[in-house]
């Protein structure tokens, strides 16, 4: 039999105004197991906690019921108090008589009656509580970063800086991500390559960091501190350790007509290629869909010109298995497809381009060597129309656009228009906007400069349609402030396409059992207080995979994710949640129902020998719960027909006791 102490909190007048706390304490005194019952102004105060500690000592209490605010508020506080008083912290139950009683009911008789019943339910539960101890599991001191854009690079550098080994997995042949494709960065206008490529070199030279480029995560199992990951290193048909990146093969490759994805298909590359000059690792890759040697065995020129002997046409995909303590997701974003926006004539005219294509078009390393020309005929444009919010903030067109604001478009459009006016003052630039959103350090000043100093024409309104006519693009738009419909003959139209999470994110989330929102952005453990952690323990979020972000934000989030990883890897052991499922082997049928509903794969089966009453032995398959993986949802307890599976802290008999106490 338990010896239970009941402590009823007034919470000043928060509880005491609607609940007769003394009557509650008095009523609960007579409940089975209760040996002491009292009330106090603020149970959570130092004095209140001391009172609990004294009572534990004086009355030799084995369990505690605190009738107070929500357990979400102070359960942890009172568990610590119990531990300080020498009790197992899980011998504490809270009756929520504030949020779910005094605050929602008006008169004292009602409030008091309900508070007593809630107290009785808590007492009934504590009577069946058992001391619980959390399990421990070791931590593999190595981190995995999935995605090698600026988010992944920064996270990896920060983790490595703290002394832990990190692996980066990148699907492309080089790290760098979207930032490597950009020309200048707002609001300072320093060139993206100038600030990014030194970081890429840092990554390459850091002996704590390994880069798996042209690779993807194939399988993830395990749990926080102990992930087992299979990484598929795709065959690039070039031995990474031998290739010097000299580029002779690229130059000699006869198959030169492959659309260059790095320049978004605006020019061509050979079948063997290095995406860009500063690529890391600077290693050539053969595109198996384009290479004649791989397709039909006719060529082999690159192998002949390679003095390092790095070409290997027989290379196979390779699976690398590694253990990690933490996983950081940094899968980034892509602009959405513009194919469905017929009104902007994106698929009809080469001169309607997306902003990312515009970046390549103005980049010194881009297809035009930085010269801004019309993609259709290479002529100098005289009028450029920028359209913002293309596919962003769409409510009804879920299949076409996105409901959210893509956040970065206002600033990069201002940047584009400003750079155009700076370099080519003869070009007229129009920016059609719905709202200009510039909440960032020096952002609004930047936008105002575009308008005031560079003469970019900002028009409040949207473009209704773009129709190619001869060499021109007829742009029909509204100017809401002047209540006019505008018709502009443009040479180039730039669409600020909405951004969406990379397509690899969804299958990855399934592998990681990390949750996602309806837009396929990863969900954070708490939108404000735990923004870089996924609800799945040991999985962290960095960059635009969690939501649209600009570079400064991405970098700060990357650092934050790194610091969370470091905090985890710095521990030698993890203590788990003791409120987990456990199976009674004597009752378990081994039917696999529990295993099938477990969201964490925490349940496995073993064949076990049992002594039967007739002294024979019998081998049966029984379920076992991995305490480090189980999160304590209880799905298995209901799936189990025999009732062999139960949940510690929320055991069936405890819940039934609560039901009984409430319904008495």
């Amino acid at each position, binding site marked *: 039999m338990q010896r239970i102490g009941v402590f009823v909190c007034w919470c000043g007048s928060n509880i005491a105004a609607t609940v007769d706390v003394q009557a509650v304490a008095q009523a609960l005194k007579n409940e089975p197991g209760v040996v002491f019952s009292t009330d106090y102004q603020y149970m959570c105060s130092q004095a209140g906690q001391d009172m609990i500690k004294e009572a534990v000592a004086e009355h030799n209490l084995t369990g505690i019921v605190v009738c107070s605010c929500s357990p979400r508020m102070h359960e942890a506080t009172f568990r610590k108090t119990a531990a300080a008083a020498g009790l197992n912290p899980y011998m504490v139950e809270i009756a929520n008589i504030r949020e779910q009683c005094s605050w929602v009911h008006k008169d004292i008789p009602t409030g008091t009656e309900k508070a007593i019943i809630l107290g009785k339910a808590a007492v009934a539960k504590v009577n069946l509580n058992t001391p619980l101890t959390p399990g421990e599991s070791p931590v593999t001191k190595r981190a995995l970063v999935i995605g090698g854009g600026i988010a992944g690079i920064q996270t990896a550098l920060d983790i490595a800086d703290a002394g832990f080994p990190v692996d980066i997995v990148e699907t492309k042949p080089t790290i760098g991500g979207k930032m490597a494709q950009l020309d200048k960065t707002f609001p300072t206008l320093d060139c993206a390559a100038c600030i990014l490529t030194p970081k890429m070199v840092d990554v390459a030279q850091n002996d704590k960091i390994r880069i798996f480029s042209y690779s993807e995560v194939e399988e993830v199992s395990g749990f926080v501190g102990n992930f087992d990951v299979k990484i598929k290193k795709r065959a690039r048909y070039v031995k990474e350790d031998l290739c010097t990146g000299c580029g002779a093969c690229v130059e000699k490759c006869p198959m030169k007509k492959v659309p260059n994805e790095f320049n978004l298909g605006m020019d061509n590359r050979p079948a063997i290629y290095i995406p860009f000059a500063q690529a890391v690792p600077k290693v050539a890759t053969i595109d198996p869909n384009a290479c004649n040697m791989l397709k039909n065995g006719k060529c082999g020129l690159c192998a002949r010109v390679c003095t390092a002997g790095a070409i290997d046409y027989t290379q196979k995909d390779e699976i690398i298995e590694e253990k990690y303590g933490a996983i950081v997701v940094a899968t980034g974003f892509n602009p959405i497809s513009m194919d469905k926006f017929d*009104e902007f004539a994106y698929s009809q005219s080469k001169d309607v381009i997306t902003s990312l294509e515009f970046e390549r078009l103005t980049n010194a390393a881009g297809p035009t060597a930085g010269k801004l020309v019309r993609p259709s005929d290479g002529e100098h444009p005289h009028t450029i129309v920028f359209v913002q*919010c293309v596919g962003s*903030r*769409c*409510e*009804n*067109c879920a299949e076409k*656009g996105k409901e959210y604001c893509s956040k970065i478009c206002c600033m990069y459009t201002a940047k584009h228009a400003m750079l155009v006016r700076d370099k080519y003052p003869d070009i007229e630039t129009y920016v059609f906007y*719905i*709202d200009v959103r510039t909440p960032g350090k020096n952002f609004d000043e930047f936008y105002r400069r575009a308008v005031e100093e560079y003469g970019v024409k900002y028009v*409040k*309104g*949207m*473009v*209704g*349609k773009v129709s190619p006519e001869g060499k021109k693009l007829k742009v*029909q*738009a*509204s*100017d*809401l402030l002047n*209540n006019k*419909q505008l018709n502009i003959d443009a040479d180039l139209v730039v669409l600020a396409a909405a951004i969406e999470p990379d397509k690899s994110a969804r299958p990855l989330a399934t592998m990681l059992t990390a949750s996602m929102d309806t837009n396929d952005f990863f969900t954070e453990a708490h939108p404000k207080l735990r923004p870089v952690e996924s609800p799945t323990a040991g999985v962290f979020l960095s960059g635009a995979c969690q939501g649209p972000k600009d570079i400064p934000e991405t970098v700060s989030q990357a650092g934050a994710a790194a610091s969370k990883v470091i905090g985890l890897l710095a521990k030698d052991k993890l203590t788990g949640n003791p409120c987990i499922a456990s199976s009674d082997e004597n009752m378990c049928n081994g039917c696999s129902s529990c295993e099938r509903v477990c969201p964490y794969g925490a349940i496995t089966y073993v064949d076990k020998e049992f002594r039967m009453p007739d002294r024979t032995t019998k081998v049966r398959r029984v379920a076992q719960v991995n305490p480090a993986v189980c999160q304590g949802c209880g799905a298995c307890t209901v799936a189990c027909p025999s009732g062999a599976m139960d949940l510690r802290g929320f055991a069936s008999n405890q819940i039934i006791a609560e039901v009984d106490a409430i319904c008495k």
Partner: protein
Amino acid sequence: MNNKMQNLRDEIILRSGVNPSKCMACGKCSATCPAYNEMEYHPHQFVSMVKSGDIEPLLASDSLYKCLTCFACVDRCPRGVEPAKLVEAVRLAAIRQQGANHLKPDMVPDMLDDDMPQQAIVSAFRKYTK
């Protein structure tokens, strides 16, 4: 907004099934409108004026009969506001007033000529008459 206008506004919103509060004032409806230059009040203004209950000027305006009901605005609106349906509802509110038929039978003979398909007159008659 007086009581009468408030009622009229609610009625228009109810009849059209349009929620003008969803409008984010991007102006894409007016940008796409082929009859824009014919209209005194443009599609986005219909949305905004109905929202604020400023309906009297709309009732009196010829713009009601300039809208072609081509539904380009409905198709393009990123927020699903459907301005054309709102215009239609205001037009109904106008012609349902006593003696406010926009097209009266005695006007028809003057309109008859060889270039005008009779079907167009019939449908205009249906559209502009109570």
